C-alpha cells in the first residue's frame, strides 16, 4: 500500500471505527517504504528495499483493553480486526492504569516530510554511494559505509473524536575510511529530512582527512583531561541523560530523584552549568518532529533544562492524574543550545587537552550517578598550546554526563548529529569540557 494522504487515512479510519461496539476504540494505521546500501572494502556489501503497512485496533470495555492488527484492507478484514480486538478485550485483565482516550484536538501540520527524499530510488542511492567511493579512492583509502532513506505515514483516530496524521521522510549516511593495513580510521555521519542537503562526497572527504591525520598515533597516559567533544561524540554521550521521566524520579530511582527526600525530585535545581539549555521543538527546521504524541497530546516546544536548571519532567497521562498535574509528553526531539565559540577557537584556547571525534560502546555503570563507560574512536588528537599536536591512541573513559555538563568551559553552534549506536539524531553543539576522566588506554583503531 502506498503512503496514504491525510484524507485517505481519515476515510479508512472512519470506516474502521464504524464497525466498533466497544466503550472506547482507537485505531492506528502506519506504513513505510525505504531502502539502504551498505559498503565495505570499496564495494557494495548488501543493499535492500522494504515496504510495510499495518493497521491496529484497540478496543476497551471498562478498564479491559484488547488489541489486534492486520495488513489487509478490504471491508471484511477491517470488520474482522475490530471484532477480534473486542473479543480480546473481554478476556483481558483489568488495567488499573488505563486512561480513557482523548477527544478532538487540533494539531499543527508538521514539517517532517520531503518529497525529494521520498522519491529516492536504488539508482539515486547508488549514485550517492559512488560519490562517496570517489572521495575514498582519491585519498587512497578503503571505506565501509551505510546510506539509508525511508518515508512513511502514521495516523490515529478514536471514537471520542480524535484524529491525527503525520508523514515524514529522512536520509542518513555514515562512512568509515581506513588504510589497507587498518592502522588509521576516520568517520563522518550526516542526517537530513531533505536529501538535497546530503553531500556524500564532502562528508567522506572529512572522514579521509581524519584518517590520514591519525597516522602514527602515540600513547599518552590516561587521566583527567580537558576535552573538546565534536557533536558526534557529544550526542552519543548525552543521549543517556535525555530521560526526564517524572514517575521514576518521584519513585526515587532516577538520577533526577532528590536523595533522601521521599517523592521529591530535582525539579527547579541547578542540575548543570548555566551555559546548558536543552529543549524539544517539533518545528526545529534542522530536526523537525511530529506534532502529536502516541496518546494524542499535542507536542509543543518544551524546555527540559534552561540555564542549567531542571525545568520540566515528563508526566504520562496516568501519572499526571495521580499527581494532579498537567500531562507532559516526553521529548519528541532534543536540541541543545550552543554558544559562540568555533571549534578552532576552542582548540586555540586549550593549553593541554584532547579533541574527540567519536565515542564508542557507551554503557551505564551506575544509574544513580549516570556513570557511563565507553571509548574514543576514529580520530583522537592531543592539543597542546592551542594547537593540534599529534594523533593519540584511544582511551576508555568513566564519566557521568551530569558531571560533564557541570564542567562546561565553552559551547559552539549546534549541529544535527547522529548517535553512533541508537542512530538517532540530535542537535548538539561542540563542547569544551574540563576534567574528563579517561581511565585506561586501548590499542584499537
Amino acid at each position, binding site marked *: 500500500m502506498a503512503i496514504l494522504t491525510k484524507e485517505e487515512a481519515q476515510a479508512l479510519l472512519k470506516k474502521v471505527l464504524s464497525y466498533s461496539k466497544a466503550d472506547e476504540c482507537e485505531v492506528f494505521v502506519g506504513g513505510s517504504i525505504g531502502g539502504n546500501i551498505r559498503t565495505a572494502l570499496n564495494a557494495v556489501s548488501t543493499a535492500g528495499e522494504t515496504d510495510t503497512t*499495518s493497521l491496529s485496533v484497540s478496543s476497551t470495555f471498562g478498564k479491559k483493553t484488547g488489541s489486534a492488527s492486520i495488513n489487509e484492507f478490504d471491508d471484511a478484514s477491517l470488520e474482522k480486526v475490530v471484532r*477480534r480486538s473486542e473479543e480480546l478485550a473481554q478476556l483481558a485483565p483489568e488495567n488499573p492504569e488505563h486512561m480513557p482516550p482523548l477527544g478532538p484536538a487540533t494539531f499543527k501540520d508538521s514539517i517532517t516530510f520531503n518529497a525529494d527524499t521520498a522519491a529516492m530510488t536504488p539508482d539515486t542511492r547508488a549514485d550517492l554511494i559512488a560519490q562517496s567511493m570517489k572521495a575514498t579512492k582519491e585519498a587512497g583509502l578503503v571505506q565501509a559505509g551505510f546510506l539509508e532513506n525511508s518515508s512513511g505515514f502514521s495516523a490515529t483516530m478514536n471514537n471520542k473524536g480524535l484524529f491525527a496524521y503525520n508523514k515524514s521522510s529522512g536520509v542518513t549516511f555514515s562512512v568509515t575510511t581506513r588504510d589497507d593495513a587498518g592502522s588509521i580510521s576516520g568517520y563522518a555521519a550526516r542526517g537530513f529530512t531533505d536529501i538535497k542537503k546530503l553531500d556524500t562526497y564532502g562528508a567522506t572527504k572529512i572522514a579521509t582527512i581524519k584518517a590520514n591525520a591519525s597516522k602514527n598515533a602515540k600513547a599518552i597516559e590516561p587521566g583527567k583531561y580537558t576535552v573538546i567533544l565534536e557533536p558526534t561524540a557529544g550526542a552519543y554521550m548525552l543521549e543517556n541523560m535525555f530521560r526526564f521521566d517524572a514517575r521514576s524520579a518521584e519513585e526515587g530511582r532516577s538520577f533526577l530523584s532528590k536523595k533522601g527526600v521521599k517523592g521529591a525530585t530535582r525539579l527547579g535545581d541547578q542540575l548543570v552549568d548555566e551555559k546548558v539549555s536543552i529543549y524539544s521543538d517539533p518545528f526545529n527546521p534542522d530536526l523537525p518532529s511530529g506534532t502529536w504524541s502516541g496518546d494524542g497530546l499535542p507536542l509543543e516546544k518544551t524546555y527540559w533544562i534552561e540555564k542549567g536548571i531542571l525545568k520540566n519532567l515528563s508526566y504520562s497521562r496516568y501519572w499526571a492524574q495521580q499527581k494532579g498535574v498537567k500531562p507532559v509528553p516526553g521529548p519528541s526531539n532534543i536540541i541543545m543550545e550552543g554558544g559562540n565559540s568555533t571549534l578552532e577557537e576552542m582548540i586555540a584556547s586549550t593549553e593541554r587537552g584532547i579533541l574527540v571525534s567519536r565515542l*564508542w560502546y557507551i554503557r551505564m555503570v551506575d*544509574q544513580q550517578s549516570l556513570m557511563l563507560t565507553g571509548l574514543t574512536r576514529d580520530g583522537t588528537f592531543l592539543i597542546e598550546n592551542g594547537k593540534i599536536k599529534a594523533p593519540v591512541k584511544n582511551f576508555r573513559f568513566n564519566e557521568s554526563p551530569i558531571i560533564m555538563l557541570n564542567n562546561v568551559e565553552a559551547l559552539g553552534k549546534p549541529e544535527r548529529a547522529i548517535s553512533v549506536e541508537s542512530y538517532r539524531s540530535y542537535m548538539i553543539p561542540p563542547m569544551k569540557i574540563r576534567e574528563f576522566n579517561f581511565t585506561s588506554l586501548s590499542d584499537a583503531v
Partner: protein
Amino acid sequence: MKRRDFIFLSGLGASAMMLPDLSAFGRSIDPQQLLDPIDIKTKKMLADIALNSAKTLGASYADVRIGRYLSQNVSTREQRVQNVSNSESFGVGIRVIANGCWGFAATNDVTKDGMAKTAARAVAVAKANAKIGGKPVDLAPQKGYGEVSWKAPIEKNAFEVPIKEKVELLLAANAIAMKGGANFVNSGISTINEQKYFASTDGSYIDQDIHRISPNFSVTKSDPTTGEFQTQSALSSPMGLGFEYLTPSESEKVKGIVTRYKQRYDILEDIAQATRNVGEKLKSKSVEPGKYDLVLDPSHLWLTIHESVGHPTELDRVLGYEANFAGTSFVSLDKVKSGTFKYGSEHVNIHADKLQKGSLGAVGYDDEGVKCGEWEIIKDGILVGLQATRDQAKVMGLSASQGCCYADGWDSVQFQRMPNVSLKPGKTPMSPDDMIKNVEKGIFIVNNGSFSIDQQRYNFQFGGQLFYEIKNGKIVGQVNDVAYQANTREFWNSCTGVCDEKDYRLGGSFSDGKGQPQQVSAVSHGSSTARFNGVNVINTKKKIG
C-alpha cells in the same frame, strides 16, 4: 552489544530520526492465532514464484525467506499486570545475486503478485549497485536438500500455556519480593517463535520451527535515609527451550553462597534470594580498587566470552565488513592460519556449536540453507577457527560455509552472525567451592552488569551484580561498585582453571546487535565457573548533586 531500551524517547522514533519500524513485532494478534501454522504447500508455491521471477530477470542465484515471527510478552509490576502483548510479523525477504552483486527486497504483501514484484525489486537493486563495481560475490558451493524440516526439541510450547498461568506465576514472585521488603519489583516472561521457510535456487526447501523463552525480574530496594538504591535481576537465562524451563528441578541447581540454575529455573526461589541479596548489597562496603583474582560464574562469564571471543572471531569483522559500525577485530586471517596465536592459557578451549540443546542459537539450518554443526575456535589456548558464511568461506580456505548466516526478520537481509560460542569445562574435577578455597584475595562475580569493549576488542570493562569478596579461601561478604578492566589476550591468558562439566551452564541474550540497519540475534554462551588471576578492578562510585 545489546540494543538498549529507548522507550523513553518514543516520540523521537517517528520523525526526528527515521520512521517507525512497523514490521518488527508491530502487529498485535489474537493469542489463538499464535498456534495456527501456515500451510507448507502454499509457502512452496509462493517461494517458487519468487525464485522463477528472479531467475527470469537475470539473477544467477536467489533465496526466499517467508517468515512468521511471533512474540508474546507478559509483564507485571508489584501486584499488577502492566502489559500483555501478542504480536506477529509476517512477510517475505528475497535475496538475489545479479551481475555479481547482492540485491534484497522485502514486503509484507505475501501474495503471488507480491512475490513477483518483490523479486523484481531485488534484482533491480542488485543491478543498480553492480554499476559501482567491486569484486563479484563468490559463494561456497551448497547442495540443495530438497524438502526438509527442523523443529526445536521443546517439551511444552510456551504459547500454549494460558496467559493467566504466566500472570499468576509472576505475581506470586512479586509478592515474595514485596514481602521481603522490596520497594519495587518488575517481572516478565518473553517468548518467541520463529516459523521460517527458506527456499533457494540450489534446490532447498527448509521449514523450521524455533522457540525461545526468557523469564526475568528486577528487585529494587532503597535506603530511605540516603536515597541510595540497588537492583538485582534474575539468575535465569534466555534459553532455546519451551515453558518447561520454568518447572524447577533440584538436579538442575548449583548450590552455594547463591543458588544458580542450569536447564530448569526456579523463579520463586530465585526472587526470594535476590530480595535478600539486594538488601545486603545496599549495606555492603565499596570495593578497594586494585588487582584481584576473579572467580567468574557462568551467569557472568557468558557475556565476557561473547564480547571478547565471540565478536572478535566473526569473519566479517576480521575482513572489515563491520568497520563502519560494530568495528573490526584484533584477530587477522594470518593469526588464525599461523596456528600459533596464543589467545589464552592452556585451560582455554572454546568452540562454536549451532546444535547445543537448550541454546538460543540452535537451528537445523542457517538462513542461507546450510546445515549447522560444531567446530573449534580456540584449542588449548591457540586460535584455530573463525565463523563464516557462504560468501566468506573461500576466504578462509574452507570448502563450505560454517552455517553462520542469520536475519532477525523477513524484512532484514541475512548476514554473518555469531553461533553459540562456549568455553569447554575443565577435565579435572573441580566445583566452584573448590576453586574459591584456593583464592587468597579475590572476588566471586555472579550475573552480568554493564559491559563495554572497543571496536577491535582489545580493551574491555565489565560490571556484574553480585560481588563476593574472597579472603584466604573464604567468602567474607558482598562488596559493591565493582568493575574490571582488562585486555582480551592478557585476560584469557590469566585463566588458571575452569570447573568441571557438573558446573556447566548457559547464559545468553535475545538481543545481540550488529549490522546496518542494526539487527539483533539470540545467542548462548556456555561455561563452567572459571578463575582469572591478577585482574585490574576499579571502583565505579561517584556522587552527583
